[in-house]
C-alpha cells in the first residue's frame, strides 16, 4: 500500500513489523495518534507486513507496506528456479525504490528489533541520521531473529527504548549496549478509548455462555497466541493443578487468542482432551474487541516464559482484574508483590496455583488488588502519561544540542 506523501518532508520515519492487533503495533498506533494530535512532528510510516490495523495507521500518516510492493515477474521466476539470493536481491531493489522518497528522513524509529531490516532499504545513511530501536523483545525473541539481524540492530541503532527494566538489563548485560543509550519506557494503552467501550452485561454473559461456564463459576483468564513463549502448556498445568484442589466454587480457565488453524492450538486441544480438562479449559479464537473477556476474568494469569510488558495485562488490569505472573517477565515490574498483583518464581506452577487460589477465595483481596492495578494503569500507563515522556526523549535524540 502506498500513500500520497505529505508536502513537508517527514522528520521521523516510524517502522513497524506489521499491523496486527498485538502489543507492539498497538502501542505504536497509540503513540502516533498522540503525536498527530499533540505535536507538529511530521512523520510517515513503513510497515514490513500488513494487518487489520493498516487503515488505522493510514488515518494517522502516510503508510508504505513493504509486503504490498508489487512482486516482480523476475523475482517470481527466480524463486521458481530456486535462485533465492537473486530473487531476494530483485525484491529488495523494488522495496528500496518504494522507499526512495524517504531515504533522507533524518530519524528512523524502529518499533521492534525485528523491523530493523527497513534501515538498510533506505540506502546509505545521511550523516545526521539517527536510528532509534524500540525493543519489545527478550532473549528468545532475539534468538529467533538470527545473529545477522541482531548484529544489524546493534550496529545501526543509536538509541534504544526498552519496554521494561528487564529488557533494559538484557540489552546492557547480554548485548553490551551502552547504558547511557538505553532508556526504559514502559508500554502504554489508550485508557479513554478502552473506557469508552465498556462491555455490556449481556456481552459478558454471552462470553460466559459461549464457553459453557455456569453462573457463579470463577474464571481464570489468559490472552495470547498459543506459541510456547506464551506458556499455554503451563496454563494447562495450572488448570490441572487447581482442578485437583478443593475449591470453594467451580473454576474455569479461558485462553483468548488461540488461532484455530495453528498447529500449536491443535496440539493443545489434544493435550486438553488427554488430560480430561475439556469441560473446564476453553480455547477462544482472537477477537477484535476482547473487552468482554477481560471483564469476565476474575484473575488474569500471565504464563509467558518471557514477555517484555504485554499490553493485554494493562488492559485486563484496567478492568480491575488482578494479575499473577512469573518473575522473569516485565509484568513483574508492574505487579510488585501483592501491590497490583503477584509474581511467583519462574515456572513454579504450584506457587502460581497458590496465588490464584488465594485471590479466588478472597473477594475483598481480589477487589483491593484489582482496584490498585486499575488505578495504576490510569495514572501511569495511559498514553497521556507515556507518550509525552517518550516524545521528549525522541526530540532530544533527533535534535541533539
Amino acid at each position, binding site marked *: 500500500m502506498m500513500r500520497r506523501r505529505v508536502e513537508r518532508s517527514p522528520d521521523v520515519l516510524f517502522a513497524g513489523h506489521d499491523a496486527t492487533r498485538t502489543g507492539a503495533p498497538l502501542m505504536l498506533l497509540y503513540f502516533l495518534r498522540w503525536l498527530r494530535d499533540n505535536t507538529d512532528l511530521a512523520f510517515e510510516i513503513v510497515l514490513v507486513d500488513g494487518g487489520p490495523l493498516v487503515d488505522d495507521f493510514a488515518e494517522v500518516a502516510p503508510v508504505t507496506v513493504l509486503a504490498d510492493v508489487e512482486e516482480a515477474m523476475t523475482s517470481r521466476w527466480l524463486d521458481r528456479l530456486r535462485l533465492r539470493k537473486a530473487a531476494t536481491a530483485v525484491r529488495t531493489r523494488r522495496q528500496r525504490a518504494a522507499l526512495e522518497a524517504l531515504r533522507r528522513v533524518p530519524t528512523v524509529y524502529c518499533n521492534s528489533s525485528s523491523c530493523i531490516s527497513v534501515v538498510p532499504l533506505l540506502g546509505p545513511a545521511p550523516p545526521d541520521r539517527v536510528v532509534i530501536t524500540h525493543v519489545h523483545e527478550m532473549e528468545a525473541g532475539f534468538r529467533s531473529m538470527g545473529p545477522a539481524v541482531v548484529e544489524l540492530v546493534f550496529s545501526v541503532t543509536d538509541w534504544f527504548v526498552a519496554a521494561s527494566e528487564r529488557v533494559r538489563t538484557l540489552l546492557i548485560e547480554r548485548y553490551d549496549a551502552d547504558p547511557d543509550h538505553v532508556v526504559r519506557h514502559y508500554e502504554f494503552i489508550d485508557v479513554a478509548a478502552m473506557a469508552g467501550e465498556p462491555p455490556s452485561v449481556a456481552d459478558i454473559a454471552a462470553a460466559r455462555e459461549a464457553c459453557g461456564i455456569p453462573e457463579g463459576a470463577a474464571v481464570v483468564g489468559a490472552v495470547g497466541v498459543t506459541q510456547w513463549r506464551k506458556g499455554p*502448556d503451563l496454563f494447562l498445568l495450572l488448570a490441572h*493443578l487447581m482442578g485437583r484442589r478443593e475449591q470453594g466454587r467451580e473454576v474455569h480457565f479461558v485462553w483468548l487468542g488461540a488461532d484455530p488453524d495453528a498447529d500449536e492450538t491443535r*496440539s493443545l486441544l489434544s493435550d486438553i482432551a488427554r488430560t480430561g480438562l475439556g469441560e473446564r479449559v476453553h480455547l477462544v479464537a482472537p477477537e477484535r474487541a476482547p473487552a468482554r473477556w477481560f471483564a469476565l476474568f476474575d484473575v488474569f494469569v500471565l504464563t509467558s516464559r518471557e514477555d517484555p510488558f504485554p499490553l493485554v495485562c494493562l488492559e485486563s488490569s484496567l478492568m480491575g482484574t488482578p494479575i499473577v505472573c512469573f518473575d522473569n517477565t516485565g509484568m513483574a515490574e508492574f505487579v510488585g508483590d501483592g501491590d497490583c498483583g503477584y509474581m511467583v518464581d519462574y515456572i513454579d506452577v*504450584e506457587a502460581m496455583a497458590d496465588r490464584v487460589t488465594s485471590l479466588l477465595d478472597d473477594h475483598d483481596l481480589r477487589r483491593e488488588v484489582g482496584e490498585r492495578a486499575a488505578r495504576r494503569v490510569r495514572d501511569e500507563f495511559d498514553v497521556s502519561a507515556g507518550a509525552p515522556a517518550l516524545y521528549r526523549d525522541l526530540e532530544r535524540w533527533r535534535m541533539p544540542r
Partner: protein
Amino acid sequence: MSGGRASPRLVVVARDASPTQENRALLAVVRSLVAIGDAEVTVVLQKGGALVDEMASITATVVAADLSRWAPAAVFERLIGRMGFRALAGRVRGHRLGLGRLGRGDAVYLHTVMVVQALRYLPRAVPVLCRVPESVYPLRQPLSSTDVRLLVDRVTRFLTVTSAGVDDLVAVHGVAPERVVRMREAVVAPVAGDRPAEGPALRTRLGFGDEAVVVGIFGDAAVEIHPPCLPLAVAIRRHPDSDAVVLLLVVPEHTAGPWARHDIEYAGLADRVAIVELVGSPPAYLDVCDVVVHAWWGADQPLAYLEAAAAGIPLVCSEGHELAELVGDDEGGYVCPRLDLPAMAAGVVALAAQPVERREKGAVAAARAAARYAPTDAAGRLWQQVLEVRVCMPS
C-alpha cells in the same frame, strides 16, 4: 499357498541388528514367530549389527547393506535406475532382497516406518503391516511427504503403539479407522555385555556427583509435545529432601527445543537438570538412572520407560496411564494422581531417599514388564494380524 511353496512367507523388515533392547525384543518376537510354525519367516535388515548372527541362527536373514554392489543384478539395477526405469529397478532390488517372489498369501511386517523404502520393492498384492512406535506425531519428520504418502497408500494395516498414533493416522492422514490397530509392545530386559558398562564414567561426564540420585525422563522435547518435566523439576526442588535429586532429560537429537534450555536457565535449574540429545535409542542412559519419571501428557507405551522397567528401574507415573499397570499398587514405583506435580515430586524424593526400596520396586517393575510385554505374546498378536490381513486382500 503361494509360489508353490509349502507354507506362506512372512517377511520382517527392520532397520538394523544393533544390540539394543528394542532389537533384542524383535529377535525374541521373530523366534516366537518361527516357533508358531505356520509361516516361513525371513528377516530383511537395512544394515547389519552385532545381532545379525543370532538372527540368522533363528531364521533366514538378509542384510541389504551387505549385498554386493558389483553383482550383475546390482549393476543392472543401478543402470536401469539411472535410465529412469525406477519401477523396474525397484523390482530388481526387491528380487535381490527376496521380496520379489512374494505373492498373495504372503505378508510383510515393517518393524518401523523408517524402512518405508521397502514398500517400493513389494508387489502390490502382498499385504503390509507396519508398526508405528510411540511419539505423538509418528508420521512426521524425518519422513518426507512422499514417504508418508507411500505409507498411507501401501500399508494394509498400521499397528500403532499409542492412541495418539491412531489419532494422527486417522485424523491427520485420512487413514480409514479399520486400517489402524493399537498393539502392545514387546520388551525384554537388557543383556549384560550388549553395551559397555559406562555408568560411573557417564555420570561424571554428565556432571553428576557420586551421591546424586539420577531421575531419568525420556522422550521428545519438541515444542509440540508440551512436556511438564521442567515444572516438575521445580516441584522437586521445592521439596525439602530433594537436595540429592538431579534430572536427566534424554531426548532425540535436535528435539530439545528452545523451551527446554530457556526454562532451565531462567528457573535456575542448571545444577539440577541435564539435557542429552541422543542419536539412536536411549538405553545407555538407563545405566545412570536410579528412577524414571513419566511426565508427559501422552505416549501410551513409551518404549524407553518399558525398557527401564524391564531393566529393574522403578517408575513414577500418572494414574490412568498404561505405565501404571507396571507399578500396580505402588509396588513397582509410585502412581500419582494424573500429572499431580507435588505428588510426583514426593514420589521421586521418596525413592531417592531409599535405595533398598528402589531395588525392591525395580524388581517388581521388571517382573511385570516381562509378563505384560512378553515377546511371545507380542508374536501371537502380530501373527493374528497377519492372518487377518491375508484374508482381507482382494483376490
